[in-house]
């Protein structure tokens, strides 16, 4: 049984007589401990996929399962086991950096002393020692995203979802943060599913890259060999770009 399974999933939004399919017949799976990246053009259903996997919205049809459990129907079963880092930091403005990182711990009702890494230690690991008492508006964008990452990791989740987590940062900050994030999450047995519009980021974060097309279907899949040479990565990049271009052309013809 795969760890994550999307099985013929569709998500259709209805507004009056109008229907928009954000995702249609999406099927893919991840094994435990795997790192998968999803790339695709804007509006192809990537973020809806994350919302479905988080159980925040119900699929119109099909099943979204983690370890064989429907994530929407059994919403609380994933409590403490899944964490997400979004494109915007989504820090609660009325909580300090430390209080934001503590939030999952408080919700789970766990004591900080029981944690292998405390919230303050997570902030220190991410280079934020000294700003624990700062409010989000007092922090830079990069710092806020680090706090968001600390918040995601503090509860030691089994599954981490990233929805363009580094997308709105400048290239230098994004590269640094991506590297730190990878160092903190690999080798831990955690499963990682990342949405990104950057092919380079997909190769860095994923062992497997799925190319998504509208409306939320997997158009192609690419394996990223570990320690791949620059030449190999360049070839892979070209194939991904070709696929994305072909998908776009097909979509234009269908329209």
């Amino acid at each position, binding site marked *: 049984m795969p760890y994550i399974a999307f099985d013929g999933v569709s998500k259709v939004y209805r507004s009056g007589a109008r229907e928009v399919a954000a995702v249609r017949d999406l099927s893919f799976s991840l094994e435990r401990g795997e790192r998968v990246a999803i790339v695709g053009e804007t509006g192809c259903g990537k973020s809806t996929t994350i*919302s479905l996997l*988080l*159980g*925040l919205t119900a699929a119109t049809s099909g099943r979204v399962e983690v370890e064989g459990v429907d994530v929407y129907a059994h*919403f*609380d079963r*994933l*409590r*403490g086991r*899944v*964490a*997400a880092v*979004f494109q*915007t930091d*989504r820090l*609660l*403005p*009325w*909580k*300090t950096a430390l209080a934001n990182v503590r*939030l*999952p711990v*408080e*919700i789970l009702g766990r004591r900080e002393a029981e944690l292998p890494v405390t919230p303050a230690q997570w902030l220190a690991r991410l280079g934020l020692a000294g700003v624990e008492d700062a*409010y989000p*508006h007092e922090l830079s964008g990069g710092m806020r995203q680090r706090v968001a990452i600390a918040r995601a990791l503090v509860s030691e989740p089994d599954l981490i979802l990233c929805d363009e987590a580094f997308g709105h940062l400048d290239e230098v900050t994004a590269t640094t943060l991506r590297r730190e994030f990878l160092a903190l999450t690999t080798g831990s047995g955690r499963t990682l599913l990342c949405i990104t519009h950057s092919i380079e980021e997909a190769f860095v974060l994923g062992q497997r890259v799925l190319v998504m097309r509208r409306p939320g279907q997997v158009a192609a899949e690419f394996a990223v060999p570990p320690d791949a040479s620059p030449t190999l990565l360049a070839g892979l990049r070209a194939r991904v770009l070709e696929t994305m271009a072909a998908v776009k052309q097909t979509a234009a013809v269908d329209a």
Partner: protein
Amino acid sequence: MPGGSRWRQYGASFVLVLVAWQVMSYFFPPFLVPSVPRVAAQAWRILTERDTLLHAGATFARILGGLSLSFVVGFGLGLWMALYRPAADLLLPIIHVIQGVPSLSWVIIAVIWFRDMESRALFVLLASGLPNFAIQIHDAVRDISRELWEMVQALRPTRSQMLRHMVLPAIVPEVFTAWKVNLGIATRVVIIAELVGSTFGIGYQLRLSQDLFNMAAVVAWTLALVLFAVLGEQALAELERRLLRWRPALGR
């Protein structure tokens, strides 16, 4: 604008008004435009005589008591409607209708329905304040950022955790705004109720002063109401400043 500078601005404006008023008093009889010393004497009487202080205290107690009850019930109702759609579908239309009734109509209804002033004051305050608070709180909850809501929801909090960590802190700014707006409305409503149907309170004192053509007393009692409003607003602003220190300051 820093606090001390703001008070200097208030003071300067007040002095300007006083000077203009005094100049006007030279051109009109005292029952139309009393001089500043006459008004000051009335104001001093209000502040130092037990009887007048009791009248003022009664009015302020009615305003604060009625408004507080309106807030408690309106807050609960607004929260319930925001979090439970069927409640909103059923109650919001009714609340909007009640909100549309003019305050004066509520005052007249209160005079007919209730014999004692306290019941009348409480009724008009609930009728005018409760719908406002309910709608303002409902809208505040509905306006909470969907992104923040989803982020917290993804952590699978219990309902009380969602309220404690997300909903209640998020709507604090709107609660203060609601109080500032409704304090002014409540003051006007209570004064009207006292004008029409009371023998105790500032509204009654205003009616008495009108009957005696005592313009100085009218102005003095009005200044008492203005002072109450200013102090109320300042108290709310100070509480807001302490509770919302997480909010970035606007402007330079």
